[in-house]
Each structure stands twice: as structure tokens, then as C-alpha cells.
């Protein structure tokens, strides 16, 4: 499953992927926090939508647009 940067709130168009909260290749539970993203307004944690092994494709400190791929979760 491809994970894309979500839109949180009315005006968000992009965010900085501030920090990964799991390691590349980790097995995560559904609802577990995967990463922090920062906008001008707030910092949000983004949770895993499903359980599985996560592969991190986006880099910490980089700015991504809403809809950009940031990770994959597989079996």
C-alpha cells in the first residue's frame, strides 16, 4: 500500500516531513504513529492506516506536496 502525504485542515498544500517515528523495515500496527509532519500552523503525527512492514521512501527535513508518496506498507 502506497502512503501519500495527507491533507490535514483546510489550507494545507505541503508539509515538511519532520521526523520518522519508526525505522525503515519495521513492522507496525494499524494506528501506530509513523512520522511527524510540520506545516506553518501545526505539527501533526501521521498514523499507519494498516498493519504491516513499512518501507520509508521520503526523507526527513524535505518538503512534500499533498499527495506525494512518502512510504509503503506491505505484508
Amino acid at each position, binding site marked *: 500500500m502506497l502512503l501519500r502525504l495527507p491533507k490535514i485542515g*483546510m*489550507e494545507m*498544500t*505541503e508539509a515538511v516531513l519532520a521526523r520518522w517515528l519508526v525505522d525503515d523495515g519495521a513492522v507496525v500496527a494499524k494506528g501506530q504513529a509513523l512520522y511527524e509532519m510540520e*506545516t*506553518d*500552523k*501545526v505539527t501533526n503525527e501521521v498514523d499507519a492506516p494498516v498493519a504491516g512492514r513499512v518501507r520509508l521512501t521520503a526523507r526527513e527535513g524535505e518538503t512534500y506536496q499533498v499527495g506525494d508518496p512518502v512510504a509503503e506498507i506491505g505484508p
Partner: protein
Amino acid sequence: MTPGGDTLRHMFGTMTLIAACDDALRSAISAGEATLSYYSPRGQEAVAAGFGAALRPDDYLVTTYRGMHDQIAKGVPLRPLLAEMVGRAEGTGKGKGGPMHVVWPDAGLMLTTGVVGSGLPIAAGLAWAAQRDHAGAPAAGSGAARGAGPRVTVASFGDGATNIGAFHEAANLAAVWRLPVVFLCQNNGYGEHTAFADHQRTAHVAQRAAAYGMPGVTVDGNDPVAVYEAVAEAAAQARAGEGPTLVEAVTYRLFGHVFGDRMAYVDPAELAAAWEHEPVARFRRRLIEQGLLTEESAAEVEARCAARATGTLSEVLGLPEPGADEVLTDVVSRSLPLTVPASAPAGDMSVRSAITLALDEALSADDRVVLLGEDISDTGVFGVTKGLAAKHGRDRVRDTPISEQAIVGAAVGAALGGLRPVAEVMFMDFLGLCLDQLANHAAKLRYMSGGLTPVPMVLRTAVGGGLQVGAQHSQMLEAWLAHVPGLKVVVPSTPSDARALLASCIADEDPCVFIEQVPLLARKGPVDGTPVPLGVADVKRPGSDVTVVTYGRQVHEAVAVAEALAPRGVEVEVLDLRSLVPLDEAAVVDSVRRTRRAVVLHEAVVTGGFGAELAAGISEVLFDRLAAPVLRVGALPAPLPYAKGLERLALPGPDRLLEAIEWVIAFSR
């Protein structure tokens, strides 16, 4: 808190004077000498005399169109009061407000409103100013005798007003903020022509106080002593920091709603019984029984009051009306353009941070600056007020209930009380919830008072299409505001302008609406410290072939289109108005005189938009000079759709602007 003999005689004198003025006015209207719409307070004299005697001279009063009794009891001098009622230049508002809009700040009378219930949120704002004024300071001068503490604000209104949203929003806000307010309901049995039992189910208005967690008391409003005691107690509670009280004074309106009302809706037996209990005669009998008056001394008071009333009315009827130069005086402050000191340059930042910076600087520079709005002590809905409550305190960056009418009304009242409020209404689409406060009060109070009560406040509001938030969170409504004389309307396009224009708005002596377009908030740019007065447009891109007159976010779209056209040999000038009111007409005319072609661009729908005003103005002044008709580009005339493609189609994108520019360039006559 029982009144002494002198106070009782004073109250009798007040009641007698009110009745005498009422009699004189009704006679003059009957005789055709005076032609006002007159809302007689006859029958309600005891309420006014009672609360008037219970207050300090510096206490505030907010009343309504049936307000002459309140005004006299609070100490408004008779001559300017009656002169205003008949529209003479010597009136309280130079004859420009009329009987429904008497104010006299020297006596604490800060507002008389013609809109039922609208005074209550404004009273809450006055009380907030008094509460802040008093914080850490001992009570001033005359206070000692009637209790130290902050000024109290009495909001006087009828039973009919207790069914309107403003009542409920104001009562709730005053209770939540523990404001020093006395809500004084003069329950005269009718809301216009509708009897009390037909307009609410509650037996007593005072029962409604429980809903807001404040005390509610019902007293005989035809007994000035009962009103005095209830108001004195409520005022003492308010001064002690215990918050508001709802005092219901049950009385009767003896001459109906308005002069000429035949009261066909009233049972004649009920009216006859009310005259039996008529308060002035009743109180006269009581004071004679108590030995505080004699038949002779009472008659002497009556004769003196009658002579004063008829004499003063006759004098003011002989006075001149205001001169023609008054028609455009007091609409806004004369002090234009306002000069704001330069700020330190602040480097690159977003529009959002620039607005935060301007608010922070204003809060730091001036103790009178206060912020109010929903969730603002956290971050506000778009993060604009982030950090300000932590730095300046939650009493200056103050959260409100979700009550737009109370937010804007309290800002109006706070401004009347000497603060510099910056209110936030979360979305411009919600203006409909508070437009009465903005358009009928903020905009008009300076004019209607002949300059006595300016309203230096700012209303910040966010808006903007293109975010897929649907038709109730997107619509640019600046044309509604620009249509109301007395309001200033500002739409920044860059971080530097946002900071400077907001500083100018906060420093301004008039109500300013500052429009924050959400899609712009993240836009970054350099912020220098150059002040930007209101009413000064800015050429964001020079050009010689066509002028795009625009503002806000569309400035950037226009510049992008201009850059795209440049290689084709078309030089587009982009003029950023920055403020719609005041409008920099000279800049528009100068630019279009050079380019001879104009396209007006805004995000709002074209129909009835501000672009129509601009296009008409350009055509009127430059008709002979124009090489092509002035075109308007704006949103399509539909509520803004949600689906992404439809939304993009509805908004004025670069394609429609490009098409319009090409059309005016190609046009030849």
C-alpha cells in the same frame, strides 16, 4: 440599599420631568410643530428614575429607541437631547442621528440603538473596557459614595428584545467573562404590537438568567424604589467582580408602540387598569403620605418641569438644522492619511507570520490593543494568533464563545470604551451572523453621534476559494462591506503589505475590516518596515498597454499572466489597490490614463461586485481617453462548488484574465 429622602425627591423630580417632556413632545407632534417618529416612554418613568439614581455618573448606559426616559435619568442635558429629537444642529449628534440615536458620553450614555437587542453585545464590550480599565487601579473620584470598583454598564431594553439572538449571545458572553453589566429589561408587556404571552412562554424574563448562570430578579417597575434597590444591588455585585445580573422591571407602555398607535390590540380594561397604577401619580401620593412632599411642593416641581420641557422644546424648534457641509462630515475620521511609524525590517516570512508579527507589535506597543475571537488563545483556525496569548495574556488575547454577534458587538463596545479591539470572525462567510453589528453600529456610530462616538476597531476575517471547502467557507464578500459608508476594507497581497496594512488598521480611528485570504497565508516574501497608509495603491508590475486593477491574491495571478504576455510584446500594468475603502482613485486614474485600457479582476462573483464600482468609476472619469470598454473578470455567478474541477472553473483563473486582456488589446474603435 434603601434610598434616602433626598434620593426619593430626586427620583420624583426625574419622573416628573420625563412625563413633562413626553407631554410636550406629544403636543408638539399633534400640533404639527415637530415631525419625529416618537416612541413614548410614558408609564416607564419609574424604571429610569430608579436605575438613574442607583448609578454613578461615570457608569455607562446603552439604551434603545424608546429611551428618552433613560437618557434624562442618566443626566443627558435637555437642550441637546430635544434638539437631536427634532433634528437640529445643536443636537447631541448635530441632528444627524435623530431620536433613535442619542448619545452623550459625558453622562455615560454611549449608545441609543434603533435595532432591537443590538445594544446588548455592545454593552458587554463597554463592560470589558471598564473591567480592563479598572484592573489594578482604584476607582475614580465620585465612586466612593456608591461603592468602589469599575464602572458598571447598564443595558436597557424591552421584553421584545429578549427573543433576539443578540440578547442570548451577550448574556452568555457577559456571564462567561464575569463582566460588570446590569441587563435591565423594561418589560412593558409588548414587543411592538405583540403581547408578552404571545412572544414567549416564560412567565418572567428574569427566568432566562438561569440559562446563563447569572442571577435574575423581577421587580415592580412602576416603583422607583424597587428598581433602585435591585439595580444598586446588581451594580454592587458587578463592581465586586461577581458578574452580570438580569433585572426585570415589570411596567407598562401607556401610549403604545409609536405615536399614533391606536392600541387596537390592547384590551381597554387592561389599559384602564394600567392608568390606575400610573407610576408618577402613584409615587407622588406615596411621598406626600410619607411627608417627603406636600401637595404644594409637588405641584411646584410639576410646574417647574412643565415649564422646562415646553420652554426647551420651543427653543430648540427655533434652532437651525445642520448645515449642508455636515452631510459628509463624521462619516470617517478627518485624520487621513494616517501615519504609522516605520517598523524594523523583518526579512523573509509568510503572510501568516507577517500578520502575527503585526498583532504582536500592536499588543506590545499599546495596552489598549486587545484581541478577541474563537480559539485565538490556542492558535486560531489558521495559526495566525499562535503564541500571542502566551506572550500577552489570555485577558488580552481573549477566547470567545461561538457567538459572532457578541464578538463584533463586544468589539464595538470595547472601542467605545477606549480600547483598540481586534476581533476575529473565523470566516468571511459568517459575516451574515454579525452584519448588524458591523453595518448598523460599527459603521454608523461616529456619524450618527456627530463624531462623539468613533469606533476604532479592526475585524480580521479569513476567506478564500480554491481550497475545496465549499460554498459556506469561501466567498469573498468585500462588496457588501464597501457598500456601507463608514467601514474601511483592506485586502493585502504580500507579507510586507499585510504587516503594514494591519498596523495602519489598528492605528486607524475607524472600523476596518482586514481580509485574510487563506490561500495567501503560506506565501512568503520579504517584509520591510515601510508603513503603508490606507488608501494608497501600489503598482506591483509596471506596464504601458493595459492596467489590471486588482487586490489580494489575484495580484499574483495578474503578475503571472503579465509575465506570460511580455514576450508577446504586451506590457500589462498590475495595480494592487490594497484597500478598497478608502480607494486610491488617483492611482487608478493615473494608471489607466496612461495605458488607456483596464481590466478589473477579483475573486468575488462579477455580479454586483466591487469591480462594477471600479469599472463604472474608470468609465466616468476616463470615457474619452479609453481605447476599449473596461472589462471585469471574477468568479462565475454560482455558489462556489466543492468538486475540484468545478471550483477551478468557477474561480477567475489565468485563462479568463488572459482572454480579457487580449480582448481589450484587440479592441479598436
